[in-house]
């Protein structure tokens, strides 16, 4: 699945990093950074959970 993040609305809560550490990281200021914008399908479930848990709705997952 394709992942897009919106760094400008990220609140740095780090839920995504805890949920899918191979996909998401945080920069020095705590804002989300993508490690992998097209992760393997084993991670689909984690990605959907990360999207659900992101308090800022900063994560978009493209299911196509």
């Amino acid at each position, binding site marked *: 699945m394709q992942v897009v993040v919106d760094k400008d609305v990220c609140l740095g809560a*780090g839920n995504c990093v805890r949920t899918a550490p191979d996909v998401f990281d945080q920069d020095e200021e*705590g*804002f989300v950074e993508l490690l992998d914008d097209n992760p393997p399908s084993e991670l689909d479930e984690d990605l959907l959970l990360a999207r659900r848990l992101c308090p800022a709705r900063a994560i978009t997952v493209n299911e196509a």
Partner: protein
Amino acid sequence: MARAPVCPFSPPPALRGLQAQAPLAKVRLWDGRTAWLVTRQADQRALLGDPRISRDTERPGYPHASVAARERGTVGRTFIGMDDPEHTRLRRMVTGRFAIKRVEAQRPAIQRIVDGLIDRMLAGPKPVDLVQAFALPVPSLVICELLGVPYADHDFFQANSRVLVNRESSAEAAREANGKLLVYLDRLIAEKLADPADDLLSELATGHVKTGELSRREAAVMGVLLLLAGHETTANMIALGTLTLLEHPDQLAALRDADDPKLIAGAVEELLRYLSIIHSGLRRVALADIEIGQQTIRAGDGVVMAIDAGNRDEQAFADPERLDLQRDAGGHMAFGFGVHQCLGQPLARVELQVVYGTLYRRIPSLRLATDLEHVPFKHDGAIYGVYELPVTW
């Protein structure tokens, strides 16, 4: 709301009754106004993530938890009491030091703090009050270091913090306590501006006050929030968590023998869920009519989300009344949900992981030095816990 005399760890039974019969119920607040009490986790999540719901503590319909909370929400208002975009603009100035990697880098320092306090306890007289000797100093030392606040002043800021979290404090007392803390933080920020160090207040001062983005007063108000937010919460999780584990000796033994850091991390999540120490509810006011279930919350209505009930919702957790350190408690809302979700959660997690992973190992015979009936529970606070926890070994 009265707690069940039978179980000091569980939310009041009346809350559970509401969950089944009236998940959205109108209740009367301390000031005579009414608000919606929301007890199901799914509803809480939906509402906390809804942009039509406001945390602006200056809005007329905002359901303050107490007189002291109302004072803080006006004279001491900062991003926790604001809506976006102001909220996000301010919060994003201080996220850096709470990022997971940066908090992880602090783990060895947190371990040293925890070990040092345990050394002192072991060398001192017993029984000892675990709250004063350990539960409060851990978060206090950690947050002081992170912010750049001298720990030597802890008696001063802890005393004023207690006034602000007590539901019974008068408006005058709360205003005075808040005023003193503001003067203190303002002075510190002035010092950091003149002579910056490697800490959060210095970053705030040089990165945002100096540039004119933030006034010194705004920075001081934020400093007060950061200094206090992590104190009572983490301290209560340490003391109440320890008491809970002592009452569940089998699970305590399993935790003590666990080598896997994942098991300890999981135990922290379960204790956060089970204890859900924020007992005053997460409070909001509706900006528009919101349909939820069969009900309509009207624009202007106050809304109180009882996360202690939500974290024991059987639609969200199987057998929710049972403490089960092995369960996947990942979906709990002890840190809230939505844009105001706890900023300090990575820090709180590492502190609790180090504490739960160290204390019972270093003092395997740790036990209560009094009867459970004599432990003074905090029934008068917005944050649940114990005032004192006499322990021995």
